């Protein structure tokens, strides 16, 4: 019908059981966090490091990993590259799950979770607050992603009428699906502005924070599409979509070049180039991060390399790490609240984050096997 097919097959495979065990361990600590001892007992969060991996991985990095739907929507619907259409549905599902898990992680991190709804009450809104924009925008985007994915569910249930109705307004949902991530992904960068001197000078670019955050979101979005398509092709024994994917990578070349150029020019303008070679932790992390951005650029610039699935996969993984490193470095690793404070995530804290990822993967596996998500010819 739409050219998408459910994969079928057994749900309870070995990898699935492993994920389930991880999820169960994390849930045990989740119970401790929500019903017994609170956040302090399961995490190493403290007065100086108020944000740990729950915010920085689950929300800041996790939602960027979930930008595949956003990146593809721009390619397919704004730049009218219809040939990438077969990739859209699985990207939307991955985005939906990624963002839902980001929201889930944020809830674990919410100190006063029992009154989370206060952020939805207009009487409380502070329009100066970047966090208000992030919170509301992400919440609405999760609903939009759910509706964007709904055709797959309706198709499976054979609800033709509902599907037709939804299709009539889908163009507006898609437009929202491009606008909302542009807003909140750039705002994630703006969060760093208010953290002022606590952010390492190499990452504290002030007015440029939203731009850099947005470009990394797009880079990670396109990379995750390439990554998911190539790995699901390998693990489910399907035809690799290399020709489609190498086309996408041309967009990525532009984004990578733009990011590297802007990043260096900003440091030049702000007189911080010397810090790159200071030899301290910040400079080493910066150089490592830049290398992760440059490696995929080198691979993708060669037409021969980018047409090979394995090289594409290396480039995609490198870019995912690059974007994740950029955000981890800025928000957490080089974050310095001042003397007397240190942070490294506790085991329960890590397990909770891993369990959220495991849950995301389990839901993805169930849904691609039971719903028409993956494209049959692509």
């Amino acid at each position, binding site marked *: 019908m739409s050219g998408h097919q459910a994969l079928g097959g057994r749900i309870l495979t070995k990898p699935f059981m492993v994920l389930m065990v991880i999820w169960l361990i994390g849930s045990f600590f989740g119970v401790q966090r929500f*019903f017994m001892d609170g956040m302090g007992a399961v995490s190493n969060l403290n007065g100086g490091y108020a944000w740990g991996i729950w915010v920085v991985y689950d929300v800041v990095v996790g939602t960027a990993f979930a930008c595949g739907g956003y990146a593809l929507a721009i390619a397919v619907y704004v730049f009218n590259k219809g040939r990438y259409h077969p990739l859209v549905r699985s990207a939307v599902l991955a985005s939906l799950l990624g963002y839902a898990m980001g929201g889930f992680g944020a809830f674990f991190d919410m100190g006063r979770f029992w009154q989370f709804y206060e952020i939805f009450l207009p009487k409380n809104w502070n329009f100066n607050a970047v966090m208000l924009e992030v919170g509301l925008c992400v919440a609405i985007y999760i609903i939009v992603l759910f509706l964007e994915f709904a055709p797959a569910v309706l198709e499976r249930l054979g609800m033709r009428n509902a599907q037709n109705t939804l299709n009539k307004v889908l163009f507006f949902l898609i437009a929202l699906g491009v606008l909302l991530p542009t807003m909140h992904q750039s705002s994630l960068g703006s969060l760093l502005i208010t953290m002022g001197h606590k952010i390492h000078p190499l990452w504290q670019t002030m007015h440029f924070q939203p731009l850099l955050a947005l470009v990394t979101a797009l880079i990670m979005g396109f990379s995750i599409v390439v990554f998911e398509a190539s790995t699901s092709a390998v693990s489910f024994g399907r035809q690799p979509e290399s020709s489609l994917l190498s086309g996408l990578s041309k967009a990525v070349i532009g984004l990578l070049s733009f990011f590297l150029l802007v990043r260096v020019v900003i440091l030049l303008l702000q007189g911080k180039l010397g810090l790159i070679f200071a030899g301290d932790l910040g400079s080493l992390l910066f150089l490592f991060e830049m290398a992760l951005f440059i490696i995929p650029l080198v691979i993708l610039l060669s037409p021969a390399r980018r047409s090979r699935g394995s090289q594409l996969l290396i480039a995609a993984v490198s870019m995912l790490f690059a974007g994740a490193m950029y955000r981890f470095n800025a928000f957490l690793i080089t974050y310095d609240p001042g003397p007397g404070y240190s942070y490294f995530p506790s085991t329960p804290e890590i397990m909770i984050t891993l369990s959220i990822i495991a849950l995301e993967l389990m839901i993805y596996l169930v849904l691609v096997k039971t719903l028409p998500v993956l494209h049959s010819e692509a």
Partner: protein
Amino acid sequence: MKRRDFLKATLGGTAALVGAGNVEARPNLEPATEAVGMLYDSTLCVGCKACVSKCKEVNDMPPVIENGENAWDSARDLSGDTLNVIKVYRDGAAAVKDAEIDGFAFEKRSCMHCVDPGCVSVCPVTAMRRNPKTGIVTHHAEACIGCRTCMVSCPYNVPQFQYNELFGQIHKCQMCNQAGVERIDKGQMTGCAEVCPTGATLFGSRKLLLEEAKRRTALKPGDSYNYPRGDISKPESYHEKEVPTYKPHVWGEKEAGGTNVMHISSVAFDKLGMPPLGERSAASIAESVQHSVYSFMALPALALAGLTYVVRRNTNDEDEGGDA
């Protein structure tokens, strides 16, 4: 209109969403009309921690007892149970008070009550508020969701969350003027200033305190000065003392837009653990960026209109199913 133009308009709008900087920047906020604050003179502090103890009493918080040593309070840093703490700077033999080398000095850490407070700017639910008259920054837990953006955005790490409680909340110094205490509204002074035996913590209007701070830092070392105690507008008593060598720097006059709680000292403030701050508040920069993009939601609305048009055209180009 041609489709190409719409595409341009959309991309322009979307690009403006992230990079716009041409709207007028918001300057730092000005001090509140009748701003009250405190002046902490590190050279007068003897480290008795009477202020720490009184603070616990006023705010109904338990003392922190370390190693069974029940000497007032052993709190080492601010926490959900400690809103005011005296810290010590030590160097080498730590023999001489207020000397940077081989000396020691005291430093009070409590909310600085910023003139342009980051915590107020970043709180999504308006749970941090600056009183427009007194400039006092208060916390209102009834709206707080516990996102802790106030903590990461405070240059001084002042707001503290009670991590060890299942239903914890943010705590910070509210200058003894929170609902139920209201010492300032009643014409009293803060608890810490009231009990300070040397006048190291002095209460009063920001204006008078800033004048006093500038007067002291301009004094000639070795001269004698009559130091007031309590409330600077009506001191309880004075004591005469030899003037130390002050650093010519009033912390809080200008740092990140200034603070209502100001510090003076004989030891450089970076040695006392104060953060490296410029004169511009981070809040003013973040708000400038945010408001240039989200002013009346005009840019997002324009971008959405353009995107809707383009997406509609492009979905119609496809086969009639138009599935996504």
